[in-house]
């Protein structure tokens, strides 16, 4: 190959390529928990497969065309006093060939593409778990209609079962993107969009909003917690206890913890009642004196106006995320801040410092009050 001899004569010119190789080696997707290159679901594999095929064609074309360019650069170097080169205006045969070859390559890419389009757009069949995804500035609400439970910023899915996400927005356009499991699907107000996937590995995987949605678009993340069917069932059973009473045992809205303020946002569904007995999960910590103080503060400081603490029968249209399981979530403030005691207290005291522009105002919570609120919320596992 002529271009190889040209390159070999100038070994210095290989340096950029070696650097490039080093760069590629340093970019192995294992280092990136949010990578789109290591799919963990059937749906994501469809796209990954198409992308791989397109990439190899592109790489081949890249090597050939840039190679030809490099060859021309060195081979046809002229001097000012060289005679005029042959004045060639074109060559119909060659031009037809280099029009047809790209067309054939594109046809080769188009086949898996169209196949992939129809596969990803097919409606999932069989035992499908439906989950409602609601985008909010700047957090994610996940509602499980079959379980009648709601959570926020942590999507729980069982491994090996197809989940179908039915998406809506409470305010502006967002885009739901769990890269390990699926590509993006935009989330609109007043229009439902869908996406589905069947996770094939357990673990906690990050994702985030991918459509610019205002000042804290960067801080609108979430986690997907994929777990074995048994673990998922255990989680679902636990979630169903996080209400006033297990939902199956009591009529909806019959007795609701924190109902007095919850009623103001929920409307007629929840009767205004005094505080009731705590939910089971909160009980172990309820002996803690900080807990009782935190419970008071949660109402006094107005937290209760925007946040619900019940997973079952949770009211719709809340401004802030559901906090029924906030104590056990890996992250707070919409999926990016580690849920440590320190971070949680800071977040409660100075939300406008931690996440500027967030809809939660600084409420003048003292360090001591923040400790109590933290203890109260931590008990909501």
């Amino acid at each position, binding site marked *: 190959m002529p271009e190889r001899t040209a390159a070999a004569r100038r070994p210095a010119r290989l340096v950029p390529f070696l650097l490039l190789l080093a760069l*590629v080696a340093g*970019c192995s*997707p294992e*280092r*990136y*928990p949010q990578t*789109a290159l290591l799919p963990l679901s059937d749906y*994501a594999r*469809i*796209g990954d497969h*198409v*992308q791989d095929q*397109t*990439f190899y064609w592109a790489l081949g*074309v890249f090597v050939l065309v840039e190679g030809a*360019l490099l060859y*021309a*650069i060195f081979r*046809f*170097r*002229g001097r000012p006093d*060289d005679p005029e*080169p*042959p*004045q*060639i*205006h*074109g060559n119909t045969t*060659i*031009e037809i060939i*280099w029009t047809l070859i790209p067309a054939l390559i*594109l046809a080769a*890419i188009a086949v*898996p*593409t*169209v196949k*992939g*389009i*129809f596969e*990803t*757009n097919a409606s999932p069949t069989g035992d499908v778990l439906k989950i409602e995804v609601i985008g909010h500035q700047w957090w994610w609400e996940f509602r499980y209609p079959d379980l009648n439970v709601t959570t926020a910023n942590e999507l729980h899915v069982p491994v090996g079962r197809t989940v179908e996400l039915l998406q809506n927005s409470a305010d*502006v356009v967002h*885009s739901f*993107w769990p*890269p390990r499991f699926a590509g*993006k*699907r*935009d989330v609109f*107000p*007043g*229009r439902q969009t869908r996406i589905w996937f069947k996770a094939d590995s357990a673990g906690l995987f*990050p994702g*985030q909003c991918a*459509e*610019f949605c*205002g*000042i804290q678009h*960067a801080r609108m993340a979430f986690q997907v917690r994929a777990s074995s069917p048994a673990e998922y069932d255990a989680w679902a059973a636990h979630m169903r206890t996080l209400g006033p009473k297990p939902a199956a045992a009591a009529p909806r809205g019959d007795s609701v913890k924190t109902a007095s303020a919850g009623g103001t946002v929920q409307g007629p569904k929840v009767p205004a009642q005094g505080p009731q007995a705590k939910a089971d999960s909160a009980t172990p910590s309820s002996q803690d004196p900080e807990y009782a103080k935190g419970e008071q503060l949660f109402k006094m400081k107005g937290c209760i106006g925007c946040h619900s603490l019940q997973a079952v029968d949770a009211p719709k249209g809340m401004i802030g995320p559901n906090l029924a399981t906030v104590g056990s979530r890996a992250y707070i403030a919409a999926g990016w801040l580690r849920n440590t005691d320190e971070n949680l207290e800071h977040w409660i005291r100075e939300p406008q410092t931690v996440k*500027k*522009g967030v809809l939660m105002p600084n409420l003048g919570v003292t360090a001591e009050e923040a400790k109590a609120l933290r203890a109260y919320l931590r008990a909501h596992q």
Partner: protein
Amino acid sequence: MATTVLDQHRVHAAHEEKTGLWSWITTVDHKRIGVLYGATAFFFFLLGGLEALLIRIQLAKPDNNFLSPEAYNQLFTMHGTSMIFLAVMPLSAMFFNYMIPLLIGARDVAFPRLNAFSYWVFLLGGLFLNAGFLFGAAPDQGWYGYANLTSRQFSPGANVDFWNMGLQVLGVSSLAAAVNFFVTVINMRAKGMTMMRMPMFVWMSFITQVLLLLAFPVLAVALILLMFDRFFGTNFFVPAGGGDPLLWQHFFWIFGHPEVYILVLPSFGIVSEVLPVFSRKPLFGYAAMVFSGVFIAFLGFGVWAHHMFATGMGPFADTFFSLATMLIAIPTGVKIFNWLGTMWGGSIQYKTPMYFSIGFIAMFIIGGLSGVMHASPPADTQQNDTYFIVAHFHYVLFGGSIFALTSGAYYWWPKMFGRLLDERLGKLHFWLMLIGFNLTFFPMHFVGLNGMPRRTWTYPAELGFETLNQLETAGAFVLFLAFSVFLVNIFKTWRGPRNAPADPWNGATLEWAIPSPPPEWNFAEAPVVQGRDPLWETKRERGGRLPEPSPGTGAGIHIPNPSYWPLITAVGVAAIFAAIMLSHKTGPWGIIVAVSILFLGVFNWVFEKGYSEFTTPAHGGH
């Protein structure tokens, strides 16, 4: 046609050199307007570059607080909007203005005062867009302004209005200029220059004007609807009122995708001029180059929804827009192969313009190939809105357009200013730009596919994006250095002597037949063209290089009179949009005053004497 507006009563004794600020304010000379476009656009380009540098500093570290999220959102919005509307488009317009009349052997554009009007409107629109910075309310909703984030409810400030009104003003400028250049190319070509003998830059520019004429009205409509939503309580894009944010996306990309070709076709044209001259061979496959350009422009209107694969349009729309997008790779490939064919077998002279044109080809190939990768919806939904896309379009618009425009600057600088830019600094500029560009944007492919979304003011450390982002920031500083070298080169050349001959590169086209810089009337005698490379043909006929041409005295050549009414009219246009923004304070009076200024300008423009005395109808080809 321009020649019908004549003032027979004034005698213009001699065309003395015009200097001073007033001569620039009232100029209707396409060359001076070209210089104004270039200087203004280069200023906005540097501003957009500084915005990018601040963005890169913020992203060098995870959880960085160098910029607040508001500042970051304003900077990325203004960077994108400025680079598209205030840098790349008007830098192309600089070459339309200065070069199209010279390349087609004309003495000016068809409508010289409309040309001045376009420039002033562009300047005012650019200032309008940036005025938000003065009030701490620069646009912050992204250059594509997706509804319904732009509604009053979610964007109560004036940020969106500076963007909306600024773009409407700029749209007026683009449309006026497009009409002007369309007519200029159709009507003002030298004798013998048939359409299929036009220089490729003129062809690509001509196609660009058609795209502008068809695409900008769509943007204007969308912006006006948004203006109605924000100021007059309509609900075109407000879901609570029955509107649909998705409608905005269709409007925007029906404009937005042809806009991509508006940004890159002039660059195709520049490269198609530079490569043959420095390969000393005619452009390979001229007809294929013309028709592939036309085909790209045509297809450009049928692919807009490939920006919207993530919205979930369903399998049939996805398939249509995916396949239409892939088709564009064919004419684009033809162009790249023809450029290679032009170099092949040539005697390549490595001057700075050639470096940048070859750099353009090498970088544009990468941008084109990543473009094919996201023509495929199942793959694109992972790539969309990540840094992979940021990498892609910078390879097309920076690696493509900016490299080509820089090539054009080095190529035509001697013609425009009578001075050759320094070759050593030029090559240093090239290498720094090539290295800096790749260091900045190549890692974005990886960081994007590995999960980094666009338009995020920061990222958490644990996602692992830091190393690559640091490389990218380092690259941005190398780019900063590259353009500093360019500025030094410009400054050095400015101070140096007028050293450029009429034809420093052994050019093939008509502009090299006249002095550098050209006299106000361009051609002392109207040229006659017999082929595609008219100057090469003349040189061959006469057996070698031509003697330095004489500019002539200009006696007997009629040229348009200077006028300040285009500026007044432009002020009226900008004032109308400012008045709408302030209407809640001024009531209807602001708008009445603004419209009065506009009418004053138009009225005096119409009844002004357009041309000075002439003795022979030497203007206007045919």
